[in-house]
């Protein structure tokens, strides 16, 4: 009975689970915490919107009722802008459909399409982090791998000329994946061979990547005539990932590539021997070793694949959206993706859903800033709150008086800190 009695909770688990089994968790049970976190984040965001608005304060000065009314108006304006800016205005969409005017339809649906564009790099980067976590590794180096991937894709995109699109475009995309893969492999190799912790090494690799790309863009890869500004030449048309509609609608094929890659990651993790290997090492490295798995190989493989996914995030931004590389390429995709992976429970489907959420929020935030005087930063705050609540489910549970799950929360991501190689 040595394993018994760790704490009352474990005892309780043991007692009630023998031999009965806990009921299967419903979808709502799984998604409940993230959904409530999002809701709570929006509520707290609303309070902040009201509290930081000068008009609301002025109104409160004239009377409590007036203050409340003004706060309500302010919040509604902001969130309405957030939602119409990111999902579109339903009334306008219906009107455009009934009018049958193709241009008007496209315009009406542009907000939601733009949200998908914004979500695309998040999906790749989130998958990179999730794959790392599933394999017991905390890849904080996604941002750096993304930059290297983008640089590689850019180079192949402008330096090679005269290829047909069906060769050039995939080649540039894969070059991006390869660049990220190399950048991920290095810390993976160091961890497997020397035990150097991937958290520290990937952070350091980030700095190397930032400075390296800065040098590349202002030196060997600089755009002729840019006067040494860190900016690459435009990529060839044959390297571009096609956009579906005329400008300014940027919705592109990369979004569907992201969905396919998400499916492939799921398939790899849960349906193949490679995935079984990665997950076993990620969940219990000791048992993996006892069962004869090569943990070092698994770590290197995981970091390489994770880096490749991060590289794709950079590649897709260059090839589909920007068509050239500048230093402002990423608005912190690599770091936000850690949050994404956690909200998505490190499951590819969860990552896709949380990426859609982040992309939508980001997209809506721009419009919110234009329509109302709400600073775009409020969206950062909302994102941060959501993340905090997801990371500490106990808060949500105590707010909504939810019962503790009978099984321990899946916390695969913690094993990366154990330092076991």
């Amino acid at each position, binding site marked *: 009975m040595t394993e018994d009695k760790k704490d009352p909770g474990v005892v309780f688990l043991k007692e009630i689970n023998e*031999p009965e089994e806990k009921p299967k968790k419903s979808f709502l049970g799984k998604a409940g915490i993230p959904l409530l976190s999002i809701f709570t984040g929006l509520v707290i965001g609303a309070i902040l919107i009201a509290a930081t608005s000068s008009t609301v304060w002025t109104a409160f000065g004239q009377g409590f009722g007036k203050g409340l009314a003004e706060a309500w108006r302010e919040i509604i304006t902001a969130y309405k802008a957030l939602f119409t800016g990111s999902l579109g205005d339903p009334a306008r969409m219906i009107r455009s459909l009934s009018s049958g005017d193709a241009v008007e339809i496209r315009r009406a649906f542009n907000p939601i399409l733009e949200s998908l564009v914004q979500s695309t790099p998040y999906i790749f980067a989130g998958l990179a982090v999730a794959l790392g976590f599933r394999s017991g590794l905390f890849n904080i180096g996604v941002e750096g791998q993304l930059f290297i991937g983008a640089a590689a894709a850019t180079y192949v995109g402008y330096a090679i000329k005269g290829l047909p699109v069906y060769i050039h475009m995939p080649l540039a995309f894969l070059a991006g994946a390869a660049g990220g893969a190399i950048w991920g492999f290095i810390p993976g190799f160091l961890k497997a061979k020397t035990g150097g912790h991937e958290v520290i090494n990937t952070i350091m690799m980030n700095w190397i990547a930032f400075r390296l790309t800065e040098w590349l863009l202002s030196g060997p890869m600089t755009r002729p005539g840019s006067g040494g500004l860190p900016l690459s030449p435009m990529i060839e048309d044959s390297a571009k990932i096609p956009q579906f509609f005329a400008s300014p609608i940027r919705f592109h094929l990369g979004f569907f590539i992201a969905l396919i890659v998400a499916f492939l990651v799921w398939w790899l993790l849960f349906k193949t*021997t490679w995935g079984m290997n990665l997950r076993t090492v990620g969940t219990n490295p000791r048992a993996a070793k006892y*069962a004869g798995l090569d943990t070092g190989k698994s770590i290197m493989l995981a970091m390489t694949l994770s880096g490749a996914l991060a590289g794709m995030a950079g590649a897709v931004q260059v090839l589909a959206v920007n068509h050239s590389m500048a230093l402002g390429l990423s608005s912190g995709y690599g770091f936000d993706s850690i949050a994404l992976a956690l909200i998505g429970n490190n499951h590819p489907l969860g990552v896709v859903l949380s990426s859609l959420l982040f992309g939508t929020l980001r997209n809506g935030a721009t419009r919110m800033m234009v329509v109302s005087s709400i600073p775009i930063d409020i969206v950062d705050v909302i994102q941060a709150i959501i993340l905090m609540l997801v990371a500490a489910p106990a808060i949500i549970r105590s707010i909504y008086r939810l019962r503790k799950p009978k099984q321990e929360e899946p916390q695969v991501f913690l094993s990366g800190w154990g330092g076991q190689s």
Partner: protein
Amino acid sequence: MTPILELKGITKRFPGVLANDHIDLTLNKGEILALLGENGAGKSTLMNILYGLYQPDEGEIFINGEKVTINSPTDAIHQGIGMVHQHFMLIPVFTVTENVMLGNESVKKLGFLDRAAAAKRIREISDQFNLAVDPDNYIRDIPVGVQQRVEIIKLLYRDAEILIFDEPTAVLTPQEADELFKIMHLLVEEGKSIIFITHKLREVLDISDRVMVIRRGAVVGEVLPENADQNSLAAMMVGREVDLEVEKIESHPGKVVLSIENLTVVDKFDEIQVENVSLEVREGEIVGVAGVQGNGQSELVYALTGLLKHQSGKISMLGQSIDKFTPRQITELGSAHIPEDRQLDGLVLPFSVAENLVLCTYYQEPFSKGVILQFPVIMENAKKLIENFDIRTPSAVTPVGSLSGGNQQKVIIARELSRPIKFLVASQPTRGLDVGSIEYIHKRLVEKRDEGAGVLLVSPELDEVMKLSDRIAVMFRGELIAVVENKGISKETIGLLMAGIVPDEISPADSSTVAETTL
């Protein structure tokens, strides 16, 4: 006389389970009451109710005839109830005094800790109950047996009258356990009362004044130890007749499957853990490795399974040298390994039963084709093994972590024994399991032997080694000090060997191999 503690009709329901079903319990002053039951029988729930961690749904608690409610461990301590947990609640970098004071600090003026006063009290308690604890020692420097006594002092320091011991011998050597029993006797002589939770039958018969048996949340009987024996207690506990003796036919050792020559293993701190060990295991025999835990048995197993490279010496398995083999190569050679810690080393707890059952073989046909896992085959395999090995699980996709300890172990046994193996290393295969599961696993090991596999059984439980082994090898401080036939050898002799003393009756001529000994 009013009993010091009385529980009446205690009932506790968890969703879907009746953990405690109208349990009545009486504890008289100055007696040792043994609470006997399998894992999951409801002992822990009952004690957690008594200790204030759970509230009963029904029932009443009386202390000295007075009705009380216990809402928290603090309440329980206040009522004079104390618990010695199986896993100690001690802080290694604190001294004994600091640990005992924690939560009940004596202070001088201005809030300074008064360590001297506390240490004095601890000395008094230690002398009164013959505990031999030095209050100034750091916890990390004292052996497990003494740490346990510190836990006891913590309770006495808080004037506990009712002491609950939860599986106290699980972490002790036989000698330390005997010491503990003496202390327990002394405690009751001094007027304390003890509830002793265990599933070890021999201990119950040895020291308790009264035995209460719980099964599936209900009291199934109360007996006096003088009117009971191990078989009758086991039957009450499990609910059917249990074979405590393992039936075994004469062994017919065949070819050598494992041969170890002058093996020396150093651990990662460069300390020699196994020194110059030579041993052979043949087909169709069980060789038991006895020894107090920490005498190099674990490192010997690591070397045999490829988890730790040995410094010098030769190991060959099934005629091949495995000195440079990886764990997987050794497995593929036709060997199996039941690791000593099933949760840390043997299983991936969040994974399903089906996945755990193919943990060593998932990459081979038919469980995968190329890189693609064949889930229908994996599920089919799981269904077959769940049935053959009687694994009690709601389904093959249930996470293994939600099964009971016994069933988790069965998953490992099923995984390892279902392969066509020639050699098996079983490291503490029944650690922490209840009588029913132990009986089952012992039968399976003997079965494997009779099918012609060589088995190396490593266990600190001397009873287990003596029951199953055909030959017994005793390890002491990394060396094999004797290998003897398990015929007519007494437990005392093995006990002496475990302590490093070679009795006269074991002359080199009697034993098959006697390693050079420095004694």
